[in-house]
């Protein structure tokens, strides 16, 4: 590490790492699970291209297997016509010109009938000549003069210059450096990024990841055992940028390959890299602010460990220590290198593996070169024979004269045929995907209810209640059942209800953003208790604090297990055998939450100052009770005020209280110091709180804007009912690290209730209503906005802030709650069937609701609900399109009335936030289903929580991003049908395209086909137009005239 980098060089390294890491999706902490597209960084490219690149980078699958698609086809989920069209188009574009071969027929048979996972697997020595020989029953020959050149080509492919160096050493020597590096880096990450799971933290974390790790690593025996060079490499005090540059140079990686190498280094642990990326881009994140780390640190740690292990391998195995030595070794002995990559890459013929291993172990080049010649002959024969057999089977399925034709094809013709088949196999998954989506679009457009011209799209008489639900797919069944029960009108809106806010929950010190992850909230809403009892603590809370203390102590567990272990056993039995009752009892012991209010209005300077003082006084009262055992009734307001002044440095002790209590000067000084350090009653904190209070609440204009926008965009500007429910949603489950994945994505992976409460507080305010009237939205005096929360695991809807309900509304409350409960039970009855909870649960809605409650409280349950699994549609339009239609909980429903949106501003809002959130959710499910182990997080059964922010498989692994198997698969088959989001928009096509054109991000999603857009144009007789391959085509009549190209060109 002899490099002393200039500022410019350092910046260059940082920029390189930043750009290289772009394809790695950020990973949010699991407390607020954000569904995201794992290929988010590639969204600027068209979907098929991005999938090809993403699957190569992450060594993952981008589509289901052929057999899985064939199963879907047999179940009628694939549009044969669409598949045939794609095959036809492909055959026309890739016609190999082989006489007698009907490529379209061959491809059709391959796609729909062949029982082959892959017709043309990768091969080293296969070409037309070898295949022709195998088809005629002869052994193919590899000419000696040709062998050397082909060997070099194979080795160049297997040992690319931009691959991490250790990968190449591992491929040649089976040194296992890669897994060892991963293991040591994971250990370093677990230690550094811990968010309170471990009792002891790494020293010096405040200085950043790399410096803190280096200090610990110098004393790490494991690392010393792994490599003697560690002492030397860790001895110097260099910046992480200098370390990265120095090691890449030492490894002999040419500078033009640095960026690609860095990317591939990072993708080795893309979960951890994604988490570090999230941290470095979230300056407000508490742990990131406290313990800073970025990808340069992460990369520096990785490269140092790698260098140590590479040098150790060079010492032990005589493997090369830099790229130049490696290239020389390969050039000098390509046959040996080939055998090595065959053996250690797992591609060696099983019957030869032992011989190859022995020959290489004996280290006699002459012996392995002789062996290599024979092995290559065997491999070429094996590849050709396997390929010939697979082609023969396919030809027999094609039928007619295909087997004979195949038998007679010459080497060049076979080369061309193989080329076309290989190309098709790369595209087949996408063709199936499009064909499945085509069927899904047909299903949808046949079921939506197109209104007759002139008929009203909303009820004409006043409904008993109107309810806004989140667009989440789980709201669809509840809305359907609620509407079916009686006089209810429902609307769909993103679950943050258009109020982007950071929320400071009562009892929680850090703020939480409650809006889609793509937005950054500027304003803060605080929750304050209406009945504050600071000095009293519920018994159970105190007990749990004691128990927590026991667990955190080093020695206590040895004694505690013997002494009070049985008590924990009781909890264990209760949770297991009687989960619902146990948790009810536990909640009762906890004492419940006090009633609270939200501060949604902006504060004046005096108000802000008064709040800070009130909080400080409350803290002092709490501190007196906890630290000095002085109860609230033993201290006067003046004494508290004096202590506050002393803590802020405005006065000096001894205080009157200290004198009265007989506290010594030192004891009082200690208490004041505790007030400052623990209870944060100090000048700087006060200033910070004041600044924070400046962000508190919304101005009247903002409040009017939020309410007006929500009502107008959804089309609710008249005929308001007595109750307007604003229903957020949340999930309840036990022992489930993925609980927040089941919460509201539009509320940033949290509960939607605070947003609902804030919205209602605004909408019920007389000043806001007055301003709404000026805007033409007349909300009747007797209309009351009521916040509520839909618990998706139990289907219960709980209304909040009912203590603020006007008295005259109380008469109707019982009817309202009964209606919501009945809808919830019917919804549960529909849902438990899919969860397979047994016939008892399906007997009645009551039984179903009870079973759902048990499921939610069962701590052994790996699937408390299906969540957003099977999500497919996003419908942006009026409820008239889907009212009474059973969409099976598969649709995001966004209420939108284009008649109130002549310039498309509302549609712009919908497409830029809720639809993007829907797309993230959808693609997270898509990729986790097509590859549950690389893009998904594998089985929950093996998961362990890591550092309180993620999960790992086993005790140490990459952070598992994506969704678990149990969320997506049922009986080893995908329960979620992996398709891209089908976004149906009810609006004139010109308006839709104009809006898309204005939004660059949405434009790349739409034209890159990350979302399938279907436009239902009311101005064109509700014609169904689908965007496919850059053209808008009439889905029900693909032969009709497509949309005018100029409109599309403008939008593009």
């Amino acid at each position, binding site marked *: 590490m002899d490099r002393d980098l200039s500022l410019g060089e350092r910046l260059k390294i940082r920029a390189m790492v930043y750009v290289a890491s772009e394809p790695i999706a950020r990973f949010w902490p699991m407390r607020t699970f954000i569904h995201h597209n794992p290929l988010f960084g590639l969204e600027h490219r068209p979907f098929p291209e991005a999938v090809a690149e993403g699957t190569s980078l992450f060594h993952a699958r981008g589509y289901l297997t052929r057999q899985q698609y064939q199963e879907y086809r047999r179940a009628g989920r694939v549009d044969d016509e669409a598949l045939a069209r794609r095959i036809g188009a492909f055959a026309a574009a890739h016609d190999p010109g082989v006489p007698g071969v009907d490529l379209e027929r061959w491809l059709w048979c391959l796609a729909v009938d062949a*029982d*082959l*996972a*892959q017709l043309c*697997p990768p091969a080293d020595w296969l070409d037309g000549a070898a295949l022709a020989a195998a088809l005629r029953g002869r052994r193919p020959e590899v000419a000696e003069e040709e062998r050397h050149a082909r060997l070099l080509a194979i080795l160049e492919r297997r040992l690319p210059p931009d691959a991490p160096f250790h990968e190449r050493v591992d491929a040649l020597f089976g040194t296992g450096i890669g897994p060892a590096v991963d293991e040591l880096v994971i250990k370093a990450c677990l230690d550094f990024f811990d968010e309170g799971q471990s009792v002891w933290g790494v020293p010096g974390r405040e200085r950043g990841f790399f410096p803190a790790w280096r200090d610990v690593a110098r004393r790490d025996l494991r690392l010393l055992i792994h490599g003697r060079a560690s002492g030397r490499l860790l001895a110097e005090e260099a910046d992480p940028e200098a370390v990265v540059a120095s090691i890449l140079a030492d490894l002999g990686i040419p500078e033009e390959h640095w960026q690609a190498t860095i990317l591939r280094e990072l993708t080795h642990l893309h979960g951890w890299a994604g988490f570090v990326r999230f941290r470095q881009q979230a300056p407000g994140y508490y742990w990131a602010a406290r313990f800073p780390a970025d990808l340069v640190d992460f990369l520096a740690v990785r490269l140092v460990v790698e260098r140590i292990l590479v040098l150790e391998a060079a010492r032990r195995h005589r493997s090369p220590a830099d790229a130049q030595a490696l290239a020389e070794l390969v050039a000098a002995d390509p046959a040996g290198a080939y055998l090595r990559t065959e053996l250690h890459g*797992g*591609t*060696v*013929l*099983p*019957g*030869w*593996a*032992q011989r190859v291993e022995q020959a290489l172990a004996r280290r006699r080049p002459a012996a392995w070169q002789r062996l290599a010649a024979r092995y290559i002959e065997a491999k070429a024969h*094996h590849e050709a024979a396997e390929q010939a057999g697979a082609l023969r089977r396919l030809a027999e399925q094609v039928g007619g004269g295909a087997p004979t034709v195949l038998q007679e094809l010459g080497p060049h013709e076979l080369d061309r045929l193989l080329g076309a088949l290989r190309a098709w196999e790369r595209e087949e998954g996408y063709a199936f995907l499009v064909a499945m989506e085509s069927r899904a679009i047909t299903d949808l457009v046949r079921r939506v209810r197109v209104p007759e011209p002139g008929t009203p799209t909303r009820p004409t008489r006043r409904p008993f209640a109107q309810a806004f639900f989140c667009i989440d797919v789980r709201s669809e069944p509840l809305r359907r059942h609620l509407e079916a029960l009686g006089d209810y009108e429902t609307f769909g809106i993103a679950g943050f209800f258009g109020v982007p806010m950071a929320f400071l929950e009562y009892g929680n010190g850090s703020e939480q953003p409650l809006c889609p992850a793509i937005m950054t909230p500027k304003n803060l809403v605080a929750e304050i208790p209406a009945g504050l009892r600071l000095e009293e603590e519920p018994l159970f809370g105190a007990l749990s604090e004691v128990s927590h203390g026991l667990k955190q102590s080093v020695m206590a567990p040895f004694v505690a297990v013997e002494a009070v272990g049985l008590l924990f056993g009781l909890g264990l039995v209760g949770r297991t055998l009687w989960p619902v009752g146990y948790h009810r009892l536990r909640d009762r012991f906890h004492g419940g939450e006090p009633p609270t209010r939200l501060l949604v209005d902006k504060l004046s300077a005096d108000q802000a100052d008064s709040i800070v003082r009130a909080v400080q006084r409350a803290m002092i009262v709490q501190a007196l009770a906890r630290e000095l055992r002085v109860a609230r009734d033993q201290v006067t307001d003046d004494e508290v005020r004096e202590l506050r002044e002393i803590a802020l440095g405005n006065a000096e002790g001894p205080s009157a209280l200290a004198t009265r209590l007989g506290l010594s000067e030192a004891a009082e000084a200690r208490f004041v110091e505790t007030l400052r350090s623990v209870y944060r009653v100090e000048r700087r904190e006060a200033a910070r709180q004041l600044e924070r209070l400046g962000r508190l609440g919304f101005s009247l204009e903002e409040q009017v804007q939020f309410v007006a926008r929500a009502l107008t965009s959804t089309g609710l500007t008249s005929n308001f009912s007595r109750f307007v429910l604003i229903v957020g949603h949340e999930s309840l489950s036990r022992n489930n690290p993925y609980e927040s994945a089941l919460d509201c994505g539009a509320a940033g992976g949290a509960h939607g209730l605070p947003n609902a409460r804030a919205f209602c507080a605004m909408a019920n305010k007389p000043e806001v209503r007055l301003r709404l009237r000026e805007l033409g939205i007349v909300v009747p005096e007797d209309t009351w906005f009521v916040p509520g929360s839909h618990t998706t695991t139990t289907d219960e809807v709980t209304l909040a802030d009912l203590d603020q309900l006007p008295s005259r509304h109380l008469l109707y409350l019982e009817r309202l709650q009964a209606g919501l409960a009945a809808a919830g039970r019917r919804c549960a009855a529909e849902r438990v069937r899919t969860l397979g909870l047994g016939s008892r649960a399906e007997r009645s809605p009551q039984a179903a609701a009870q079973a759902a409650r048990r499921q939610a409280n069962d701590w052994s349950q790996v699937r408390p609900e299906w969540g957003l699994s099977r999500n497919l549609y996003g419908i942006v339009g009026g409820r008239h399109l889907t009212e009474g239609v059973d969409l099976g909980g598969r649709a995001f429903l966004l209420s939108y009335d284009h008649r109130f949106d002549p310039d498309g501003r509302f549609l712009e809002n919908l497409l830029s936030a809720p639809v993007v959130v829907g797309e993230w959710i959808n693609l997270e499910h898509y990729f986790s289903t097509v590859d549950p*182990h690389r893009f998904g997080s594998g089985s929950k059964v093996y998961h362990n929580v890591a550092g309180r922010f993620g999960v790992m498989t086993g005790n140490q692994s990459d952070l598992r991003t994506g969704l678990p198997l149990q969320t997506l698969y049922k009986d080893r088959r995908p329960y979620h049908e992996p398709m891209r989001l089908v976004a149906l928009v009810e609006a004139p096509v010109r308006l839709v395209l104009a809006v898309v054109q204005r939004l660059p991000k949405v434009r790349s999603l739409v034209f890159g086909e990350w979302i399938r857009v279907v436009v239902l144009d009311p101005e064109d007789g509700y014609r169904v137009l689908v965007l496919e391959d850059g053209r808008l085509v009439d889905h029900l009549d693909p032969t009709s005239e497509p949309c005018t190209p100029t409109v599309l060109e403008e939008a593009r």
Partner: protein
Amino acid sequence: MVDLRVLAAACLLPVFPLSALFNQLVEQVRHPAARALAVLGLPEAGAALLEGLPRHTLVRGVVHSPAVVALVLFTSLLYALRALSVREVTLWARLVATSGLSLDWLLVGTGAPARSVELFALAWSVPAALLMVWAGLFSARLGGAYLGLRGGLAARLPRLSWLVALSALALVATPLFPSFFGLLHVVDVLPLSQLWAVLGVLFLWAWATGRFLGHLLFGTPGAGPVADLPVVPASLGVVVLAGLVVLGVLWSGRWTGI
């Protein structure tokens, strides 16, 4: 001077360095069934040779000397260690069998009856022979019995994989199999000062088996359908293994005196 018959026996009931001959002999047999017979037959032939020798020659003359005990333990440790890095089923079985069979000499040294020496050899040679047969079946299906190239064999060839796994466990002295009781007896007759070597052997076997089974059972299954072992032959294999367990339990009575 060492009786030549003892040297011949040391080839067949392998002890280092003559164990190399035993391994070469088995290696040279290509057909899996013949190889299995060789693994079964050669140690028994060795035991038969020893049976023909005068008893005092065996007990006092050669075998009981500390050098021979050390050599036997060294052989066992050496082959157990070699098995650690092996992934080919036949080779693995051969090495572990050699490691186990060599311990038979400790029994000979205690003056155990000839029948016990033969049964002790069978406790290792039967599972090893079974593994040779299973390896042949693997090769017929996958082209070779080299594990770890394609993971998840347990998912693709469940019956065959489980037979291999159980046979491997039978070979490394898993409780209830005869090798376990045989090893218990060895532990019983050895002085405490030499016990560490047997424990070392046991540790290496466990480690080697862990690696072996890891390659066999775990990993992502490879592509393409492969026919598993039909039910009848698989049942036969299970019967043989179950028979081994029963024999082991019955035989254990002889050692433990129950």
